[in-house]
């Protein structure tokens, strides 16, 4: 049997039954209400269940994504799944679109003008593309003059990246060029006589 404590089996069964009918990630709070358990216990239960699936080498797994738990196929069986469902996922994003998405993800809420200032080019078309894909959406308006529309990322964005929340994005600091790289850039721009 699974490494799950026996007295948890009924509760785990309830979680399995709910996840099998859910079409969106199920927030732990919702499971807690259904199971009449504290949220922390639900989280322990789901973590234990996920670990058990992994150990049993199941074809599915439980992941925490976009603020909830989701049942999905295990990457190990990707080959079978791919042959079964014809790929319906949208086209990969271009590097420029991905870069804009990264700017919005890390700097949200952010206006088109602020995005353009970072990228050095107008980002109107790219922002529209990302909004069309459902990765970003208007989340408010700037308080300043002009009241620019501010953009943020969506739950679909988190689902597509397999993240639980934007707090789980890899820290931006790790992408800042290291001092050698900055020095190299600086070298390019250096004035004569300072060498």
């Amino acid at each position, binding site marked *: 049997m699974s490494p799950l404590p026996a007295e948890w089996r009924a509760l785990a069964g309830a979680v399995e039954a709910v*996840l*099998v*009918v*859910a*079409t969106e990630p199920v927030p732990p709070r919702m499971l807690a209400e259904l199971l009449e358990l504290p949220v922390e216990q639900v989280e322990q239960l789901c973590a234990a269940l996920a670990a058990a699936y992994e150990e049993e080498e199941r074809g*599915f*797994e439980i992941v925490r994504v976009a603020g909830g738990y*989701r*049942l*999905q*196929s*295990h*990457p190990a069986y*990707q080959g079978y799944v791919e042959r079964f*469902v014809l790929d319906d*996922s949208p086209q*990969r*994003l*271009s*590097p*420029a*679109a*991905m*870069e804009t*998405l*990264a*700017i919005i*993800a*890390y700097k949200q809420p952010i206006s088109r003008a602020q995005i*353009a200032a*970072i*990228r*050095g*080019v*107008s*980002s*109107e*078309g*790219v922002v529209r*593309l990302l909004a069309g894909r459902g990765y970003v959406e208007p989340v408010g308006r700037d308080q300043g003059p002009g009241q620019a529309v501010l953009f943020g990322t969506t739950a679909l964005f988190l689902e*597509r*990246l*397999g*993240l639980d929340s934007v707090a789980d994005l*890899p820290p*931006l600091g790790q*992408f*800042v*060029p290291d001092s050698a*790289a*900055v020095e*190299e*850039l*600086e*070298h*390019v*721009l250096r*004035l*004569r*006589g300072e060498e």
Partner: protein
Amino acid sequence: MGYEVRTEVYEGPFDLLLRLIAAQEVDVWEVRISEIVDAFVAETRRLGAIDLEVATEFLVIAATLLELKCRRLLPGRDDVELEEELALLEARDYLLARLVEARTFQGAAQALSRLERAASRSTARRAGPDERFERCAPDLLAGVTPEDLLAAACRALAARPAPRVPTEHLPDEEVSVQDAIDELVATLPGRGPVTFRALTTSASPAHLVASFLALLELYKRELVELEQLSTFGDLTVTWKAPSAALQAGS
């Protein structure tokens, strides 16, 4: 259709510059600005249109680079004023900060791509409740009529007119400066000093602008004298030429 340039493929001047620096691994002394310009022009040709924002941003960068390079080509720095030097350092810092930021988000974008690729190796369960649970969920179509559906279809299909600049607040009237000149030439002679305000009491904003330009034109032709005693004060117009001079002058 509105004015739109596809910039999804073109990644911007910072990116271009970064790639160039990475490819050449040289300092500004050796950066061939003509190559950067050529690459930019080629890219613009390929896109078939010029995005003013892109072009402006590019000019700023190219000019900054050019200026930095000129400094390096100059024999010494004695002839460089301190102020200019400081301005140059500022420009360099500005460029450096933006290059660092651009590179940071390039790295972040690559990380997001990796996450996306990893996540796409799993497929979410989306089957939903089976028919046993059909009656649990409320009927979302209760009370919805085919007409409601038609209205929703019209809303959806009509919802997105092409982006446009609203112009309905602009008057349709066409006012030419020449018309305004003719008007002034018809009214001013023999009238004595008169304020511009009095001349244009009932004029529309467009008419007002045309009249002002007409007045400047007449002043240039030395047909009127203008006097304004204080800033933003009333402008007094005095006709000074006989009407015959106008025909001779024009």
